[in-house]
């Protein structure tokens, strides 16, 4: 059977040569590959596939350069004021440097702890960092992303309280209740929207889900809302912006039960939305209901310190349909980025960075607020982002900004009339902000 073993020249990713293949087939005791494929229905074997021929690395690079060139980014001279869940932050060289280490990048889940102490100790550092940042007692080694972490936190609250209704503040990013909905829709869970000003809640809620800073950038009164939840036996689930934790009081200060966050701001490229890492921390008492991988410290037969996956009986590979979550492959490598990022910024850096972001966003807000026709609508304390009401549709304003190589704020006219959500971090220089303000001024004058 001539066609049975592919006789094309070797590919760089496939070492076996024709003669080796023949030798191995001989050892196996067959004449051709097809002899090994007997279980595949013959009529469907070797289908025709419409796929292009392989490219050399040099050609592949050109293909990808074109993809990249078709996108507007800082690399093509654009400045951007988008936030709303993914943030532009400066990523220190240490993060990229460590992220190039193949021993981290090309390992897998540390099933053999003796051969994975690197991954494991980093995971333990990550858990520590998340606890320190959030002020919580325990954290897991990471979830897929922020919204799934939030969804799993609400489901966990339902398991802990054995209740099936979940309250989510109306001020939250809609991606949170939407993801929660997708995660819970067949589990008899009902999602209830709550006003941030709510003073009374139904007494059968599993939790109140709070985003703070909320979708509009404003700090919520987590303390009050947590008390409200606890008064009715519900848990408090708070979704935070981890950068803000350099400056603002952490949820741990307010007796919050579960904290989640999108970890992206901590050293992870925006990368059109992923991969990111979900941060997940909770009170120690709830730990056996926690989803996700957990790394624990232990000792070896000689009494030396070592780390290993622990509390695995919560997990799908052991508990199967009764697991706390179906999560398996998670986001260890992104957790490494977070660990290196936070270790690099450190105590002072995290504080300074949060202050700097605060300064810049407030400067931008105050400058925009002065413009004829524009008004800043986020009340009270905000972080990173704020709502700007525009004199014309945000869509038209953004189109005019784009002509100036400025990617404006997120159009949120579906949530607030004629409004956009503008985000400013430390990666926007004063000159960038002034350029935005000047452009908005011009656009405002015209409309």
């Amino acid at each position, binding site marked *: 059977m001539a066609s049975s073993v592919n006789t094309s020249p070797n590919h760089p*990713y496939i070492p076996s040569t024709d003669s080796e293949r023949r030798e*191995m087939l001989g050892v196996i005791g067959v004449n051709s590959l097809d002899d090994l494929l007997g279980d595949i229905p013959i009529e469907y074997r070797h*289908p025709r596939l419409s796929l292009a021929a392989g490219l050399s690395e040099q050609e592949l690079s050109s293909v990808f350069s074109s993809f990249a060139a078709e996108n*507007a980014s800082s690399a093509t001279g654009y400045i951007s004021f988008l936030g709303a869940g993914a943030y532009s932050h400066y990523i220190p060289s240490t993060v990229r440097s460590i992220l190039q280490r193949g021993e981290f990048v090309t390992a897998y889940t540390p099933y053999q702890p003796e051969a994975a102490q690197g991954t494991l100790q980093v995971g333990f550092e990550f858990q520590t960092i998340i606890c320190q*940042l959030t002020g919580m007692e*325990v954290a897991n080694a990471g979830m897929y992303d922020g919204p799934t972490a939030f969804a799993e936190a609400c489901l966990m609250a339902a398991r802990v309280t054995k209740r099936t209704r979940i309250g989510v503040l109306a001020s939250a990013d809609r991606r949170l209740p939407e993801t929660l909905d997708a995660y819970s829709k067949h589990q008899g869970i009902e999602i209830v929207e709550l006003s941030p000003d709510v003073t009374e809640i139904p007494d059968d809620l599993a939790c109140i889900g709070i985003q703070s800073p909320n979708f509009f950038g404003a700090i919520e009164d987590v303390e009050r809302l947590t008390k409200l939840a606890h008064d009715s036996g519900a848990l408090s689930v708070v979704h935070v912006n981890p950068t803000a934790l350099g400056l603002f009081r952490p949820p741990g200060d307010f007796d919050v039960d579960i904290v989640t966050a999108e970890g992206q701001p901590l050293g992870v490229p*925006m*990368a059109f939305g992923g991969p990111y890492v979900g941060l997940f921390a909770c009170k120690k008492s709830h730990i056996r209901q926690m989803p996700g991988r957990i790394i624990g410290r232990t000792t070896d037969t000689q009494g030396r310190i070592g780390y290993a996956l622990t509390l695995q009986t919560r997990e799908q590979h052991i508990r199967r349909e009764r697991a706390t979550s*179906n999560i398996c492959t998670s986001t260890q490598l992104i957790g490494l980025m977070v660990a290196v990022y936070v270790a690099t*910024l450190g105590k002072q850096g995290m504080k300074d960075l949060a202050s700097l972001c605060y300064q810049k966003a407030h400067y931008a807000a105050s400058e925009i607020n002065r413009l004829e026709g524009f008004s800043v609508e986020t009340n009270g304390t905000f972080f990173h982002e704020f709502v700007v009401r525009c004199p014309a549709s945000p869509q038209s304003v953004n189109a005019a900004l784009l002509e100036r190589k400025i990617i404006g704020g997120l159009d949120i006219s579906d949530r607030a009339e004629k409004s956009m959500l503008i985000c400013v971090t430390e990666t926007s220089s004063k000159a960038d902000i002034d350029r935005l303000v000047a452009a908005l001024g011009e656009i405002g004058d015209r409309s």
Partner: protein
Amino acid sequence: MTITTNAGDLDRRLLMDRSVTGRKAFTVPESDVPAQELPDSSLLRDDVELPEVSQLDVIRYFSVLSQLNFSIDTNFYPLGSCTMKYNPKINDELANLPGLAEIHPLQPEETVQGAIRLLKALQDDLGEITGLPGVSLAPLAGAQGEYAGLLIARAYHDARNDDKRTVAIVPDSAHGTNPASASMAGLDVVTVRSDAQGNVDVENLKELASSNTAVFMLTIPSTLGLFEPNILEITTIIHNAGGLVYADGANLNALLGLVKLGDLGVDICHSNLHKTFSTPHGGGGPGSGPVMVTDELAKYLPKPVAEKADAGYLLASPEQSIGTINGFHGSFSIAARAYAYIKALGLEGLQSVSENAIISANYIQAKLRDKYDLAADRYCMHETVLSATRQKKRGVAGIDIAKRLLDFGIHAPTMYFPLIVDEALMVEPTESESKETLDHFIAVMRQIDDEIDSNPAVILEAPHDLPVTRLDEATAARKPVLRWAPAE
């Protein structure tokens, strides 16, 4: 930053233990805007207790830690069902191009045409490879792909008001995520037996398939490394019962260009880009688990789905989408790597991947079958499941063999899975390892078998030269220590 204790042992202190007040590894720039008033101090925290170390400390600490790992870049890593193949370095570079890594997920579509075009091209290729043309790249890992697939199945039945279908039939050999995902999807998990050959017990399946069957979840090839010979009969049974067939395509590495799942009656499948399509496993993620479906089911796909319209590329939400299963558009830079992988190999290369993966696994099986029992005594696909039952009787368990392999710089196979095989050692060499490496593995496995008689202690006390010997996992779980705490 020291790397040994004064006694010369590896210094395992954590960053917080190494922290010194006032040290720093980074400087945040001074503010260039006029000073803004800070909020009420009652909102502010004092300090965050985080490490204070120098930049060299950061680099040295993590560099030294990295060396404690086994990895593809440094070791043979035949971890079954995980497809630990070579992860091309070019893919990492391309995914990190600023034009791909520095774009925001909410940018206007006209500013991210390259990114969406890439996603569309990958969707097309995955649809072609699996024969299931409806593709969403949203799922962030295999398990999320499964979950999305099950939501699609439920949406399909719901749309037909076929609301009694609350059962997922799952083979006893299935990966744990299958039943876990099914139960998240509100389905009752019913297990179908494997027969003596490792196939689905068709008679048992016939008994189970009924009007309450929502979906049958078949891993193909199975976790025994076997292609289900009765696949056509099975998909017919399920379809006749009104259910859908879900294929767990985590093991797609065996099938590239050899058969299309869609041709076999599969309705829905997922694939792990971090396995077959060679994106790095990262010590446990990130991954990406695209879900592929028939044309008929495409309207239920999770959003977004990349499409090409006259005006350009866009991210669409299918008509009756099951919705948003995560934050944005999936693992974009993982998708970019996978697409680069497909492009680098092309049609012939992808076929060659599976051909060589299959030959390598069968070669190992043929060379070890006299010493180790096989879970199924027939040709395997891309992996072979050995059983250390004979070794167990002689005093050495699967885990001991696994640990002893580490002494030779070889990562252990997947142990004790699938659950239906005693002392399972699931060996997946992948096509990217050379025959010499396979021969080395074979020689070491044979030697370990010899050592059971000549020197069992060397196995039972393995591993010998790693940073730790075997760990006390029981105490770790009983008295969990999960974070650094200040010395008391």
